[in-house]
């Protein structure tokens, strides 16, 4: 599978978004280091920078856009359809898509670390200082959050295979918080905690997850995965 993915990553339609992502990370990392250096000094910068990176939802937005774009491209160019020609079943395609998401999450996190390490070198921070000052629980939380975000993006890509979806998705990302705030203000009811993106963002928040959070995250991930499986089983990928 790794060889297949490396071959895919060489495609222009995949590599260009990665380059754009790297530039976006570079800007985020530079800003993060600049802001941290105003507050703390020396190795504490590494701790502050890594914590803010792990809790950043902006990165997840970039990741979801990338996954959405990649999924739509792989469906449109017939890559997934080609797997049927080689004898794969739809269930195997579902498993392959999940493995792809995991691989892309790891690739994304490694790319992010490399960019932060490069910017850190210019600020006099060695890469191992970043590693030592990173919180392992925050790292795992970010992995799980990005995985869930990737599944959301893949689902959207399979439901509507159209690049024009990216803009409404970005708009919804920014509007969700505003809508939740408006409902709370007008109706004095906190329904925002049941919105899908807000539920998933709890994974990387400062607060520990409560049983309610865990239940909602489980329900939403079950819904997404069952829907994705259903779509893959039924969708005409021709």
């Amino acid at each position, binding site marked *: 599978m790794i060889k297949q993915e490396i071959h895919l990553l060489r495609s222009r339609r995949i590599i260009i978004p990665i380059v754009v992502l790297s530039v976006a990370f570079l800007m985020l990392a530079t800003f993060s280091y600049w802001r941290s250096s105003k507050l703390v000094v020396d190795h504490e910068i590494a701790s502050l920078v890594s914590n803010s990176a792990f809790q950043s939802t902006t990165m997840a937005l970039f990741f979801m856009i990338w996954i959405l774009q990649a999924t739509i491209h792989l469906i449109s160019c017939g890559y997934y359809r080609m797997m049927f020609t080689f004898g794969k079943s739809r*269930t195997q395609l*579902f*498993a392959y898509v*999940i493995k792809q998401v995991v691989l892309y999450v790891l690739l994304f996190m490694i790319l992010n670390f490399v960019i932060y390490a490069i910017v850190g070198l210019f600020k006099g921070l060695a890469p191992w200082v970043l590693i030592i000052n990173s919180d392992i*629980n925050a790292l*795992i*939380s970010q992995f*799980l959050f990005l*995985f*869930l975000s990737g599944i959301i993006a893949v689902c959207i890509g399979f439901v509507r295979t159209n690049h024009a979806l990216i803009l409404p998705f970005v708009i919804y990302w920014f509007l969700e918080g505003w809508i939740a705030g408006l409902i709370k203000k007008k109706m004095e009811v906190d329904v925002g905690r049941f919105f899908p993106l807000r539920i998933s963002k709890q*994974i990387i928040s400062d607060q*520990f*997850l409560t049983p309610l959070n*865990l239940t909602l*995250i*489980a329900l939403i*991930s*079950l819904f997404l*995965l*069952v829907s*994705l*499986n*259903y779509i893959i*089983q039924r969708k005409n990928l021709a």
Partner: protein
Amino acid sequence: MRDIKYPIYIVLTFVVLLFLNNEWAKSRAFSFYNNNENVAAPIREELRRNELLSDEAEANTIVINLWATWCRPCQKEIPKLNVLVDKYESENTLFLAITGEEEAKVLDWSNYQKYESSYFQMYDNRRLMDYIFGLNPNVTLKKGRTQQRLPTNVVIHNDKILYYEQGYSEEKLSKLDSVLMTLK
């Protein structure tokens, strides 16, 4: 049914990982409760972690009241405890009330009460309450079990327990008064 088997497996794996990571983070965050240096160390650490109470963490004397809104005796003793605060509060003496209930609920309840506690308040901290229940020197239960009775009043001076009583009575409050008098 076969169709949803794999999504269910993936969700179970995902949720188990999430739960284990959450529990691991909690045990790391609260590992200071295993500190046996002195009885007050976890209490001082919790105070340091609280934005509003961090300045009080180094008080020599900590007078603790464990209470809840549903506890009638806790409500009865509030005016009497307020008298103690007026008499003995100083730079080195912290009067701290701890409850396991959320701040919003307690504040809502307080709006309908005749007396308001003068103690510094720490909300939603069941973990610290359980720790303090575990400090009870009057052990009458089997090993590993703690008596969790409200109200509980504790005085810790120079990291040693000088007073530990559970339940409400005039005699216990008089004894608390005399303990604080000796420290004045």
